[in-house]
């Protein structure tokens, strides 16, 4: 494709839109939906090549939020990386912490007391509720209703964040898990607050579904849009609700059975079409399953220490070796791969970011669709730029 001049699109002073001639399709329109476009979730850019109305080529461009997270991890102690994991997927700091803690515990062979495992499950499921309701809110924002579902989702999210704040001290940057347990033991009234939230959340979900799921305009806008086949999803390494929407039954909580998940009975919803509507519905159904897990975990929470007494806080030097710990985060399988050379700093510190990997197939879903659909498909893939760029 002969591009008239090779200056990158929307370079300073360049136009955000450029006409391009392509020998197969004739006159095309190359549009840069720039890093500050209102409907991209954070600093993310798509160079979309349009033949009239339909998308011919879509090149995602990111890296604007790269903070050198992994190289930093190699130069600080294991403990010092923990607060940085909050900044990976800044919506779900609890699950990031847990994934890193699981990896280090596997590396150093630490045991985690029973109560800490239960508290970790409770916090992970609360984060899943928070993330999925935010996703549905942002998706509706892209579809065009002026922020109403997003505000309802944020109203519920605030309640969960207040719980996290009263437990860990900060709403989004919790820095709560430690290697071998959790930092603070949840008090009785905190658990009562969590119970109240779980009981009230069902009513919110019913109201949310009444507003959205049956909405004809929404169904027309999302059904059949951004269809993803299970074969492509598996080969591209897509994980999480996007994979389950294509019908593949792969949920780490069932596959690995890590933590105390095998003790709870919950189901894993699966979609058949793998389009945007399925991805939205799978998240709504997963929220209902999380409520079940939460009530069971809150009921069965045992007593005992929150932190393994033998766990050392400072001067933590795991023996040389490598480990890969992974959990089922709200966006998919979030994993940490660590190589230790016996010193206080990890030799290699690698994060497996689910939203980055789910993003690789964005073009396959958007080909042949209009720009308005591309925006919704991007919204349904649920990416957070902190995790994509690391």
């Amino acid at each position, binding site marked *: 494709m002969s591009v008239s001049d090779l200056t990158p699109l929307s370079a300073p002073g360049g136009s955000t839109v450029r006409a391009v001639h392509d*020998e*197969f*399709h*004739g006159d095309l329109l190359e549009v840069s939906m720039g890093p500050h476009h209102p409907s991209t979730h954070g600093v993310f850019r798509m160079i979309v090549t349009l033949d009239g109305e339909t998308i011919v080529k879509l090149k995602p461009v990111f890296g604007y939020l790269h903070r050198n997270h992994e190289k930093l991890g190699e130069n600080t102690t294991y403990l010092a990386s923990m607060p940085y994991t909050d900044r990976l997927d800044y919506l779900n700091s609890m699950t990031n912490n847990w994934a890193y803690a699981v990896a280090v515990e596997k590396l150093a062979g630490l045991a985690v007391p029973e109560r800490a495992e239960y508290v970790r499950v409770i916090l992970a499921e609360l984060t899943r509720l928070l993330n999925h309701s935010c996703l549905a809110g942002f998706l509706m924002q892209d579809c065009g209703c002026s922020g109403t579902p997003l505000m309802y989702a944020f109203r519920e999210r605030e309640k969960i964040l207040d719980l996290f704040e009263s437990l860990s001290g900060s709403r989004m940057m919790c820095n709560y898990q430690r290697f071998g347990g959790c930092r603070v033991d949840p008090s009785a009234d905190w658990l009562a607050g969590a119970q109240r939230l779980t009981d009230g959340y069902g009513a919110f979900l019913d109201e949310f579904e009444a507003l959205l799921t049956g909405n004809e305009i929404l169904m027309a806008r999302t059904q059949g849009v951004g269809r993803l086949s299970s074969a492509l999803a598996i080969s591209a390494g897509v994980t999480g609700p996007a994979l389950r929407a294509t019908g593949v039954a792969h949920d780490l909580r069932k596959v690995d059975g890590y933590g105390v998940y095998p003790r709870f009975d919950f189901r894993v919803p699966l979609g058949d079409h793998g389009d945007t509507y399925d991805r939205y519905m799978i998240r709504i159904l997963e929220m209902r399953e999380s409520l079940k897990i939460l009530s069971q975990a809150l009921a069965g929470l045992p007593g005992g220490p929150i932190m393994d007494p033998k766990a050392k806080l400072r001067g933590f030097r795991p023996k040389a070796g490598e480990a890969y710990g992974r959990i089922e985060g709200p966006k998919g399988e979030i994993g940490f791969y660590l190589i230790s050379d016996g010193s206080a700093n990890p030799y290699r510190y690698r994060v497996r970011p689910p939203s980055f990997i789910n993003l690789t197939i964005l073009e396959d879903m958007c080909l042949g669709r209009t720009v308005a659909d591309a925006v919704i498909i991007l919204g349904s893939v649920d990416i957070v730029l902190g995790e994509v760029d690391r």
Partner: protein
Amino acid sequence: MMIPALLLIAFVILASAGVAMVLRNLIHSALLLVLSWTGIAAFYLWAGAEFVAFAQILVYAGGISMVVLFAVLLTRPARDAELPVTPPTVLRIAAGLMASAMVGSITVMAVLTSHLVAPASARAPGLTVKDLGALLAGPHAAALLLVGVILTVALLGAIIIAAPEPAPRPEDQP
């Protein structure tokens, strides 16, 4: 009170039509013609035929102006197609002006010499919409239906003519 209003409306119609004729920029001339059509509608209002005036605005300013502007946009000649016009423009303009001047003088002479003694200050015959409707449905019912058929056939034909055949793409070529 009647005559100065008529002069003003006449001036608007003739001025905008004349300027539209002279302008190079196609869009401006099309828009000026729309102005002259609205002037004609004002004339109908002056004459007391409200229904016709609003029909004129609805059909011309609402519909035909859109079709004209779309046509003007769709047929933008490529910038580099300034071919020399075969019969030189000056000659052609002169011939056109001469012909229309002749026709004009004949009609004007006919109007001035005719001894149409029209009651100058006759009240405008009050034609309400109901009588118009009765007229249309009564003696002119056949004509109304015919115009309906003409309109549908004409628009269907227009769509077929204007619809672009799918441009043959190079990869389809044998």
